[in-house]
């Protein structure tokens, strides 16, 4: 973590000894809590090996966890692509010179950011059975509802990212573009937005975590994603708790990898643009990770 903080002095020999003791005491407290929880779980019989071994068998993965994970990733993937398109469209809409397009895009974006994703999912899911689209089978309604709701919400968040990205660019960029004879839309398209996207990439990657997590809302509208399948597996073997734990670990591993990816992507691509040259003010905390906007 932080190598150097100004909140406290670099510890001397005495402070180091005291910190070592405090570390040991705190470690014992944590270990004590862990032992207490495990003892409680053990007393309820939740630690029995046969509740955990089903996850070591291929059949559990083949029949439940992998299909669930594939459905989760499918919904997330479609939602990511859709959100990118939606976000670019409405982000540009909010930057448009026409006041009508600006206002309309603004209303759409603000509305879908304020309404809970679950509300939209339930509405689309139940609404699909009302309109009778011949292209879709009823079994596909949950997937469509999950993806559409995620696109509307995250697309709106992307639109705001595009807008704030363009605003954060130095004004000289647009002035230069106009000076070499580009029109405003051309300058936006080929000069400002590409830079804004690269500047916003870490935030965009963090938003992917939100999309992936929110696919689990599909559980409520019977979409057969990872959580749903894990629960089915838990019901079949009588080990709900363990199944939920395994599903949570899978989510955490993927999302943690994505959060680690965000700063790396930012660094890699940041070097390719010289748009933002203003140095950040020094801060009390050495490393601040981009928190997913949620």
């Amino acid at each position, binding site marked *: 973590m932080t190598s150097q903080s100004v909140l406290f002095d670099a510890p001397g020999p005495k402070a180091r000894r005291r910190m070592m003791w405090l570390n040991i005491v705190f470690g014992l407290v944590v270990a004590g809590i862990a032992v207490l929880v495990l003892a409680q779980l053990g007393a309820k019989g939740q630690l029995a090996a046969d509740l955990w071994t089903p996850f070591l068998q291929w059949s559990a993965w083949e029949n439940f966890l992998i299909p669930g994970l594939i459905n989760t990733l499918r919904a997330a993937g479609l939602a990511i692509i859709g959100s990118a398109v939606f976000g670019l469209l409405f982000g540009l809409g909010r930057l448009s010179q026409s006041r009508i397009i600006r206002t309309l895009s603004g209303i759409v974006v603000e509305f879908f950011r304020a309404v809970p994703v679950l*509300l939209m999912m339930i509405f689309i899911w139940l609404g699909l059975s009302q309109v009778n689209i011949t292209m879709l089978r009823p079994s596909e309604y949950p997937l469509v509802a999950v993806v559409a709701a995620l696109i509307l919400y995250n697309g709106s968040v992307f639109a705001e990212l595009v807008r704030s990205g363009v605003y954060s660019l130095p004004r000289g960029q647009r002035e230069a573009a106009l000076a070499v004879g580009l029109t405003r839309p051309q300058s936006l398209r080929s000069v400002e937005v590409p830079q804004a996207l690269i500047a916003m990439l870490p935030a965009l990657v963090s938003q992917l975590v939100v999309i992936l997590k929110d696919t689990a809302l599909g559980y409520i509208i019977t979409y057969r994603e990872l959580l749903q399948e894990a629960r089915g597996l838990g019901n079949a073997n009588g080990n709900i*708790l363990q199944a939920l734990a395994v599903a949570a670990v899978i989510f955490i591993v993927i999302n943690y990898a994505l959060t680690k990816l965000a700063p790396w992507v930012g660094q890699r691509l940041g070097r390719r643009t010289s748009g933002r040259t203003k140095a950040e003010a020094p801060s009390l905390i050495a490393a601040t990770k981009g928190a997913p906007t*949620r």
Partner: protein
Amino acid sequence: MDGDYLSQFLSLFSQFDVPAAFWVNIKLTFFAAIIALVIGTVLAVMRISPLPSLRWAGSTYVNLLRNTPLTIIIVFCVLGLWSQLGVTLSSDFNENFFRLAVLGLAVYHAAFVCEALRSGVNTVPIGQAEAARAIGLGFLPTARLIILPQAFRGAVAPLGNTLIALAKNSTVAAAGSVAEASGLMKTMIEFRPDVIFAIFFTFALGFVIIVIPIGLATTSLSRRLAVTR
């Protein structure tokens, strides 16, 4: 859309108590927000403390909870804590589900409160911490007297965003068998699918009405409370 449609739709309100469902969301948000603020503050202090083990524990909590879907946490509270482990928070059946959902919402959002406060800590100039040390304050007095009061003021905007997310996420309590707005909307649409649009917009509008004042209040508060430097 004629008068008939409207009167059909309005008659639904006498059969379903929509404000009561929204009141459940508001209560969920209120209690979860208070608990999340307490846990989040403790986590934030742990994460900036000189003790490596505390920092490690704090960041582990944040990384684990922030990357877990809220739905899993709520489902775990009901299927795991209550039905498997027998954790009961109230003798009343429905109140028990409500409290379990509050617990789930609070532990999840505490991770985001912690991150918001850390961003607030970053708004405090380094010189303040150096000055505090120069006059001989240790870590805890520095944090309590100098850093945290300013960090809270600097973190009003991100804390407001977390509160808005919490208000919207209170709908996920539906996964924990709490009778709140999204569940009632589902029931109403299933009962009267012909007025589905009016029902959806009623509930959507309800959330817009809850969320927008929070946003406006925290934005103006963050301006008013900002420490001018």
